[in-house]
């Protein structure tokens, strides 16, 4: 079954209005901000962002905010619980007539991968189980970026981070496999889950438009290519994101009530093309090529798509 976009068919349908304005302290070429900006175009201005500690904490830094909507910074481990409090309070205040219905807001959690995959997992699991009506936007740059790129459970096999350095014992970087947060979410049976990559803006916009039809937890996992941490030139952010998708390493997909659809089927370039672009994988190619590790990464992707294609 081929996935069809219904709302966003042409690039010129991307809304012109910006809801996250310039002037933020985020790195030049930030893939996470690229994804958030596109998401916000569909989410609109009537939003309260509930933020977990991470790079995005720098978005609203006194006395400046880039948002037309509202913002609440919570903690690293409990942004979904913050979303629960805001959503419940809005509902109660509207029900009691203390807040007009037209003042209602969408509640959107912003969390990095460190928060999303580990420290806030209990809080997220609780919110999904309680069927909280909210969006969860994870900007996944595969490491603790705000503290300078330490290993997170989202760090993929073979990547070098400041806490998974290469050594004689581990010449290929980390041997951990990236945690499959998509499947962990899916096991909770929320109405909508999607992965997105900002290099595929129509796919991203379409998914936010589709998600808006569902009440309950709506979860987005956004590939956030990171020039600062992945060690490539900031101008290459879309190229890196594109290769993540085209090699099959970052599948674009959605799950509606648990039913998974891949929204884009890549021709699957060799993973090497993606790895070679980034300093965090340079040790796989020099001074000694780590064939075993590269084969391992390729084999994992092959297995994944074999299971997708049946």
């Amino acid at each position: 079954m081929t996935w069809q976009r219904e709302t966003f068919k042409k690039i010129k349908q991307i809304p012109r209005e910006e809801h996250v304005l310039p002037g933020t302290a985020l790195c030049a070429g930030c893939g996470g901000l690229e994804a958030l900006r596109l998401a916000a175009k569909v989410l609109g201005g009537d939003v309260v962002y509930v933020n977990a500690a991470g790079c995005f904490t720098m978005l609203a830094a006194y006395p400046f905010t880039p948002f037309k909507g509202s913002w609440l910074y919570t903690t690293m481990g409990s942004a979904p619980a913050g979303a629960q409090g805001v959503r419940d309070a809005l509902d109660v205040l509207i029900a009691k007539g203390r807040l007009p219905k037209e003042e209602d807001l969408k509640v959107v959690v912003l969390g990095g991968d460190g928060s999303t995959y580990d420290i806030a997992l209990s809080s997220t699991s609780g919110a999904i189980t309680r069927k909280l009506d909210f969006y969860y936007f994870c900007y996944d740059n595969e490491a603790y970026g705000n503290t300078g790129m330490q290993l997170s459970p989202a760090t993929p096999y073979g990547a070098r981070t400041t806490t998974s350095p290469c050594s004689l014992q581990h010449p290929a970087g980390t041997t951990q496999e990236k945690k499959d947060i998509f499947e962990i979410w899916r096991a909770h049976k929320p109405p909508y889950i999607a992965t997105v990559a900002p290099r595929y803006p129509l796919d991203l916009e379409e998914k936010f438009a589709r998600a808006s039809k569902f009440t309950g937890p709506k979860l987005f996992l956004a590939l956030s290519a990171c020039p600062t941490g992945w060690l490539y030139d900031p101008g290459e952010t879309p190229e890196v994101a594109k290769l993540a998708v085209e090699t099959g390493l970052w599948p674009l997909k959605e799950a509606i009530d648990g039913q998974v659809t891949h929204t884009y089927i890549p021709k699957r370039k060799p993973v090497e093309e993606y790895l070679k672009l980034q300093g965090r994988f340079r040790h796989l190619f020099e001074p000694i090529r780590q064939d075993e590790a590269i084969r391992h990464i390729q084999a994992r992707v092959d297995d994944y798509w074999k299971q997708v294609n049946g």
Partner: protein
Amino acid sequence: MRAVRFHGRGGQGAKTASRILGTAAFLEGFVAQDSPIYGAERRGAPVAAFTRIAKDPIRERGVIVHPDLVVIADASLVQDPAARVLDGIDERTAVFVNTSLTAEQCQAQTSLPGRLTTLDLTDIALQQFGKRGAISALLGAVAGRLAGLHRESMSGAIARELADLGLAVPVIEHNQTIALQCYDAVRTVPLETGAAQPAASAQLQVPSYEPPTRGTARISAAANSILRETGGWRTFRPVLVPDKCNGCWLCFAYCPDGVISMTKDDRPVIDYAHCKGCQICVHECPTEALVAEREQEGAVAWKAK
């Protein structure tokens, strides 16, 4: 004691330069101390680092308020109030600026009060390394020369500090060579280490209670980040070649910061006050209608409000 303050943009290597200087002084038998300002620096955002060099134990800590030497890695920082480059500089302060301008031109343009010396490290780095990136070794070498440290100690310090960053031996050696060329090329200026004036007693003004609308860390002005200009982060600016533009919207779609808007007839308009110069639009433009041009310091591309 010699107090050296480095100003740079995140990613330029100001912190490493301060360490190279500290290590070089240490290798020469001085007491040294170096520290960066640690905050939420991002690539391109103003950062500062400090090195103190003395014969006796150093009892000061943290920010250098009255520097003897200021090393400025990026000329645009002088105009950026957030960088606070001018703090504590007077006519006796030695100031190095990485710029293509001569010291006289630079002084005329920036009205920096100190004793200026300049060298175009960015150009040297572009020519020698073939890409933009960190110039920590070059900055460190220049600072070492101006602070009166020896060539050999600079070379040794560069080797130590770059190895610490995990750079490969050939890269380090290349850096050493180029850095020592900069060491030799920079025009020295006299460095004075005057006795610090004793501080006057601070005029304390203890705040009184204000209603929580003002007395709480909240922002009620919506989307006011637009007041904060990030155009000075650029070393390269994207420039539109109108004839080549096919109006495809890709630059608008991919810009992370949302600084490109499209006109009614589908032409991109770039907000240079905020464009951070990531070059995504240049990379992704299918018709090469956007090209990267190095920021010219003569024509200041960006000014603080």
